[in-house]
Every structure is written in structure tokens, then in C-alpha cells.
């Protein structure tokens, strides 16, 4: 399904984030990428749909190399890759339904997008998926009215509505509290199995990876240092992955991340009004 070969990424700052990563995702399995912060996990996920341009190597999805695609080919390829983000990345000021339907945005015309005019079957399925992820009845709420857990459920619904060939998931739980994290992971893996979609998931918490995924890829300093099933993951493997010191704390706390999501609204003080004379 997805085959990554010798993938390299060097940022313009000179940082070598990925130093020749090779791995694959087969059939309907759930594969997790674990590793300390700064190991290149997010970069790897983002290179697959080229939100970050890889420097070298190839990414073959369903027999086609993503890295050599033109812009419009890439857009079509991206329709087949659902993505779930660390900070949900919902369009905060739109309704839940608009966010979920936006998963189909690659299939409709600009005019339809403008009028929010989606095919009937998409709408019907959106209702169904919303029910499935446990936020049925909230379709008319605005995304910024929801809690973190609810937002990530919408994020999952949006990705599923895309009917993707693979789900790319970037730290889905690091902005959530531990209890919600387990619930979201459970839902995510369950729904992927129901729909028969393979999942590549970059995750910070090893416990979640062990519990919910079929295969684990350990990444350290831009290189693959472990490949195996959760059963094969022992203390030795843990030491190899995290050998370069303990896993450092993530940069920001969940609270801050949710704060950052608040979209800008205008607040013009009287001061501004007066200076305009």
C-alpha cells in the first residue's frame, strides 16, 4: 500500500531530520512510529503527503510515486490520504458539518465549495460518520465551541469521509488528557478496521502504541532503529530508541495548543478609533 524508500529530509536550516528512512504499511494494518522528540516522526508523516517536501527518496502509494508528482497529480493523491493532526486543525469558525464535509473538498468544484453544495450521499454519510464517532447532533455547532476530545473526533470523521486509501495520523493525542487519549485512539483504530483503511500513526506515548497498533517502527535521530510487533518490543528496543537520553518533554502543553486555535477576531479599541483622525 505505502512504501517509503531511503527518504531524506534536510531543512533549509541544515537540520537533517530524516537520514534515509525505509518502511512500509501493508494491507489494513495499523503501524505506529515512536521515538523521542526531534527524532523526525512528524517530518516523516508530513513528507508522505508532501506538506513538507522531502529532499530525496521515494514514497510509493498504491503503485505511484508521490515525490515526482505534479501539483495537480499531488492534489489527487492527497484525496487518497486522510490526515489527522496533533492540533486537530479544524476550521475553527465553521460548523462541525462544514468541517466534516470539507473532507470531500477535493471532489467538488470551486462554485460548489463556495455554496457548500455537497452531493447528497456525502451529506448522508457525514451524518452517519458523526454518529459513529460519537458527536451526532452537533453538526450545527461551531468547531471552536467543542472540547479537545470532540474536536479530534471531528478530525477523525473528516478524514474518514475522505474515503482515503491510508490514514496519516500525526500525534493525535498529545493535545488531549490521558483518559481522552485512550478513547480517541480506541475510536481511531476501531473505525480504521471497520472501514478497512490502513493507518500510519506517529505517536508520543509508547503505551498507546503497544496497546493499539499492529506494528511499531522506532525512529531515533532520523533513522529507523526498530521494526517489530508490540510483542517484540522489549526493554532492549526501548533503550535503543530512546538511548540518546530520556524522551524530552513536548514543546507545549495542551492548554496552550487549544488557546492557539482560537481564531483571530477583530477588537478595535477606542485608541485606534481616535488615531484615525
Amino acid at each position, binding site marked *: 500500500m505505502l512504501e517509503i524508500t531511503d527518504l531524506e529530509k534536510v531543512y533549509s536550516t541544515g537540520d537533517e531530520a530524516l537520514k534515509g528512512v525505509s518502511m512500509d504499511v501493508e494491507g489494513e494494518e495499523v503501524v505506529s512510529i515512536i521515538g523521542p522528540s526531534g527524532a523526525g516522526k512528524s517530518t516523516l508523516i508530513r513528507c508522505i*503527503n508532501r*506538506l513538507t517536501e522531502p529532499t530525496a527518496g521515494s514514497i510509493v502509494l498504491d503503485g505511484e510515486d508521490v515525490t515526482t508528482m505534479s501539483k495537480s497529480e499531488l*492534489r*489527487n*493523491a*492527497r*484525496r*487518497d*490520504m*486522510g*490526515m489527522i*493532526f496533533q*492540533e486537530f*486543525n*479544524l*476550521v*475553527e*469558525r*465553521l460548523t462541525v458539518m*462544514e468541517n466534516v464535509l*470539507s*473532507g470531500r*473538498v*477535493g471532489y467538488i468544484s*470551486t462554485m460548489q*465549495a*463556495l455554496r457548500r453544495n455537497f452531493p447528497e450521499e456525502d451529506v448522508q454519510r457525514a451524518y452517519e460518520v458523526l454518529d459513529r464517532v460519537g458527536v451526532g447532533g452537533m453538526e450545527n455547532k461551531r468547531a471552536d465551541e467543542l472540547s479537545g476530545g470532540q474536536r479530534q473526533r471531528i478530525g477523525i470523521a*473528516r478524514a474518514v469521509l*475522505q474515503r482515503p486509501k491510508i490514514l496519516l495520523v500525526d500525534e493525535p493525542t498529545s493535545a488531549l488528557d490521558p483518559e481522552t487519549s485512550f478513547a480517541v485512539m480506541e475510536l481511531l483504530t476501531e473505525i480504521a478496521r471497520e472501514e478497512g483503511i490502513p493507518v500510519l500513526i506517529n505517536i508520543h506515548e509508547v503505551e498507546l502504541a503497544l496497546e493499539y497498533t499492529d506494528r511499531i517502527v522506532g525512529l531515533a535521530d532520523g533513522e529507523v532503529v526498530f521494526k517489530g510487533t508490540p510483542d517484540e518490543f522489549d526493554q532492549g528496543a526501548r533503550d535503543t530508541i530512546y538511548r540518546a537520553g530520556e524522551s524530552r518533554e513536548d514543546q507545549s502543553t495542551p492548554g496552550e495548543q487549544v488557546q*492557539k*486555535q482560537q*481564531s*483571530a*477576531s*477583530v*477588537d*478595535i479599541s477606542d485608541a*485606534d*478609533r481616535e488615531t*484615525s*483622525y
Partner: protein
Amino acid sequence: MSVENQTEWRKHSPRYHIARWAAIVASIAVVVLSWRELNVTYEFLIFTPRNLADLFVRMTPPDWAYSIDILPPLIETVNIAILGTGLAVLIALPIAYMGAENTAPHPIAYAFGKFMIVATRSVNVIIWALFFVVIFGTGALAGVLAVAFRSIGFVSKLIAEGIEEIDTGQTEAIKAMGGSPMDVAIYGIVPQIKPTFVGVTTYRWDINVREATVIGLVGAGGIGVELNTSVDFLQWPRVLTILIAILGIVLVSEVVSAYLRKKVS
């Protein structure tokens, strides 16, 4: 408490004391010097309160019958504000795009955007009106252009700030789902800057209603023309009617603009 003590201590530090007194003395000196610079005739000054009171007596009661006649210029004032704001927004959008750090296509464009923002903001509406009256003659057209040019800087500055605050995560999500650049604009960018856009536009319109009341003093249309004529012909009750009318439309537009901004937050 320790913070309190600290400010207390700072207040009583001799340097702070001296600086404060120096500032007060300097301010008074500047005001006194300024007063002398103005060469105000003291007889005039003594009569000022009486003159103002006199004028007020002559103004009352307002000429209510006249209020029918000033309806067209009042509507014109509001129209000048609407068209001026609309035109300003049209011109301001590309400037805001250039003047926002994250969307500026080129450093030169960015510099140009910033320059336009500063330049249009620093010239008062009445000066713009003088120019456009010279070019297009007296009338509302000059007023619309004056109001528009005056507003460009304000509108583009605030919209540019709105663009700079866009959360790229949201636009990235649309991109990741295979959205075209148009889809990214429609789904990712428009919802994010809509409140800024509506807020800035209605706020500026509200300010412009007030500005549109004076451009008539140099012949650029609106109620100011009536005011100028009535003052020239010493028709004081009419002047008071106009003042009340201005007060009315300014207050109404303030309420309307506040309501619209609340709706779109």
C-alpha cells in the same frame, strides 16, 4: 504586599521625585509659552463666554421645518461614507495582502504595502478633499474619493494584521485533503479573516460617517455643504438643526456598526 512596598519605595526615591517635578514644571512652561505664542487678544477672551452664550441663544429654537430640506444631504453623507468605505476596502485588500508579513510576495511589495499604509493614514480627510475638489470639482464624488483614500491605510493595516494572525494549521488541513488553492482560500482563509474584515469595514464606515460630515466644508458634498452655507448666511436656527442631525446620524451609525460587529464575532 512586597510589590506595594516596592512602588512606594520607587515613589520616594529622590530621582523619581525630581523627574516628576521636572516634567510638571516643563509641561506648565510649555503651555505658558504656547499661550503667549498664540497672541490672544485678552478683550476677545473676556467676551468669549458671552459670545458663545449669545450664539447659543440665537440658535434656539432649532428650525424644525428645515429638517426636511437637509434629508437629502444627510443621505448623501451616509452614502459618501458607504461608497468611500467600499472603495477603500477594494483598494486596501491587495495592499493588505502585500503589507502582511506572511503573504507579501516580495520584500519590495511588502515595503510598498507598508508605505501606502503609513502615507494614506497621515493625511487628513480634509486635505484629501481639497485635492479631489481641485481635480473633480465640488460635489460628492470628491468626497467619496477623499474618504476612500483617507481610509485605505486604516483598513489595510488592520486587515494585514488579521492576515498575519491566520492559523496555518487550518489552511494546511484543507491542502492535505487535496483542496485546490481556491478551496484553501474558501475553506481555510475566508472563515478566518471574515470577522476581521467585517469588523474593520463596519468600524471604518462608522468613523467615515463622522468624517463625511466635514468634507462639505471644502465643497466635497454631504451635510457639511449645508452647514457651511447656513453659517455663511448666519442662519443660526438652521445651524442648530444641522448639528442635531449630525449628532443623530453619527450616533445611529455607531449603534449599527456595533451591532454588526457583534453579529459576526
